[in-house]
């Protein structure tokens, strides 16, 4: 679903897109970081950019935040033309960069207070909003802790809370879970969802983990500065392919017949192993094991990875080429 309407087609009655780009291009000397990006993100959506390093994700965010000037093309955020009124855009957005931008010599509270002043949050509301955001991030009890004493997950949550302090229409999250352990990752996602539902902000985030894409309403897969696929996670997954259950059994032929008879599956034999392709491998696996009993010697569940997605849409593996273009 790429943008089909020209800017002039937008009528007063329809709400403006949260983010819209048209034929967006950014070229650095010798590198085409973004090559004709068309994008339409709806208000209130959690939209994910999925792609390897160098795909142009961070460059695109940098342009949308008015930090980097596009080489050509159009871009609008929260109804403002980024090229014409960058300040209005900056007031409408919150940004959480890939690396930490907290001052770790200050407390959580002080970091938020400085942000409030920089974004012109009405003075009388600062205290109340700081407390509300710290509560939302589960950090109220650490309000007077120096940031350097917080864990990685806490810092990330604090940055996201800070990004929302001035009530932006659009929140950009660049690799919000990179460098976090699985538990902190889940925590961060829980907070992203909670903050979206409580503030109604549109969220545009980047990730290179397919497993995290399920947290988005829609995702765009980026490769070499272009969108190669766009849709809901379920749509993309169904297009990419399915989970594979790989079984090593004493008698593959007999097992195959048994699975066909009792479960209606159609396994194939590949390299001596029995392979079953299903939508949701985790849900089917127990039934498969029950049907085959003790004749299985080993089993593995293989889910499509970003590499599979990539292979599917670009015909090459992510790892097959060094990342270029500087994802800065």
């Amino acid at each position, binding site marked *: 679903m790429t943008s089909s309407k020209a800017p002039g087609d937008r009528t007063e009655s329809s709400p403006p897109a949260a983010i819209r780009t048209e034929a967006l291009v950014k070229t650095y000397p010798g590198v085409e970081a973004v090559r004709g990006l068309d994008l339409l993100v709806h208000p*209130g959506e959690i939209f994910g950019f999925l792609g390897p390093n160098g795909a142009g994700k961070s460059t695109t965010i940098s342009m949308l935040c008015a930090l980097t000037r596009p080489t050509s093309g159009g871009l609008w955020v929260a*109804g*403002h033309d980024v090229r014409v009124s960058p300040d209005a855009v900056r007031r409408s957005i919150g940004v959480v960069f890939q690396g*930490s931008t907290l001052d*770790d010599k200050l407390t959580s509270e002080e970091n938020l207070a400085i942000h409030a002043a*920089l974004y*012109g949050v009405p003075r009388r509301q600062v205290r109340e909003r700081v407390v509300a955001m710290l509560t939302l991030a589960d950090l109220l009890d650490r309000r007077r802790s120096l940031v350097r004493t917080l864990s990685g997950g806490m810092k990330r949550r604090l940055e996201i809370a800070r990004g929302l302090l001035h009530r932006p229409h659009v929140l950009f999250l660049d690799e919000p879970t990179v460098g976090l352990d699985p538990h902190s990752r889940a925590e961060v996602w829980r907070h992203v969802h909670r903050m979206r539902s409580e503030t109604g902000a549109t969220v545009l985030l980047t990730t290179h983990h397919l497993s995290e894409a399920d947290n988005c309403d829609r995702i765009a897969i980026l490769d070499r500065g272009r969108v190669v696929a766009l849709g809901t996670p379920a749509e993309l997954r169904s297009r990419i392919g399915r989970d594979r259950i790989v079984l090593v059994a004493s008698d593959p032929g007999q097992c195959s017949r048994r699975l066909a008879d009792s479960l209606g599956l159609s396994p194939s034999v590949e390299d001596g192993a029995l392979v079953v392709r299903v939508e949701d491998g985790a849900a089917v696996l127990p039934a498969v094991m029950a049907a085959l009993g003790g004749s299985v010697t080993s089993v593995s569940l293989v889910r499509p990875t970003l590499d599979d997605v990539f292979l599917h849409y670009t015909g090459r593996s992510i790892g097959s080429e060094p990342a270029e273009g500087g994802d800065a």
Partner: protein
Amino acid sequence: MSPAPTVPPTAARLASEGRAAAAVWKREMITFQRERMHLVISLLQPLLILVALGVGLGTVVPEDGSGVGYVTFLFPGVLVMAIQPPAFATGASILWDREFGFLREMLVAPVRRESLLLGKVLAGTTIATCHGGILLLFAGLAGVPYDPLLFAGFVAVLAPASFAMTCLGALLAVCVPSPKSFQAATGLLLGPLVFLSGAFFPLNGLPSWLVALTALNPLTYAVDAARRVLVSHLPAGAADGMFRGLELWGVRPPVSGELMALTVFGAVFLLVGARRFARPD
């Protein structure tokens, strides 16, 4: 979705820029207060110089008839020297903010980069003036009287001197790529600036090509102004000899003119620095 905020009118705009600068200022003040150990250590150096150099050289520099010694002559110079490290630390902090990421948080905010830089240099000015002010407590070591009026006069010199040097540091910081090169540049600059300021010896006997250099050195005016404030509180006989004061090509600049010169130096450094800093990537 509620209507997106629009650009506020000029007065509100100015107020919000001021608030942003104040926030940047406050951030530096909080850090300054938390790192008192740093303050103590950086005050030790000027004190050591005052005692070691003042007393040591005092034995070879003859006292003039008034009984005022070299250590007293040295005191204004040490005051001005003490403000250098904190003033240049502001420039370094801009680069460290870039290194540690906080600079991006500031740059993406809907405020002008000039306001951010202004907040930074005003913070540096405040901190450097405080350093000098604390050193005043040790005036007795140099035979300088504890006189509130004299101290007020010193602070009136230290503030514009701190401003000029902080702005110079900030200008340098926005011109170099990394904290490391900044350190190298200040190391190179600081020595000549201090030695050619008149802090340690009167400048009046210098060859004319060196006089031209001293005239371009903001610290020259700071040291001379501080020393002349001091002389007015010393016994009448002290106004001669090494305390005679700065003369540039036979002209004796008034103290008010020197304070003005310091402010103008600072403003020029700041404007040039802000221009560079405001350049988008």
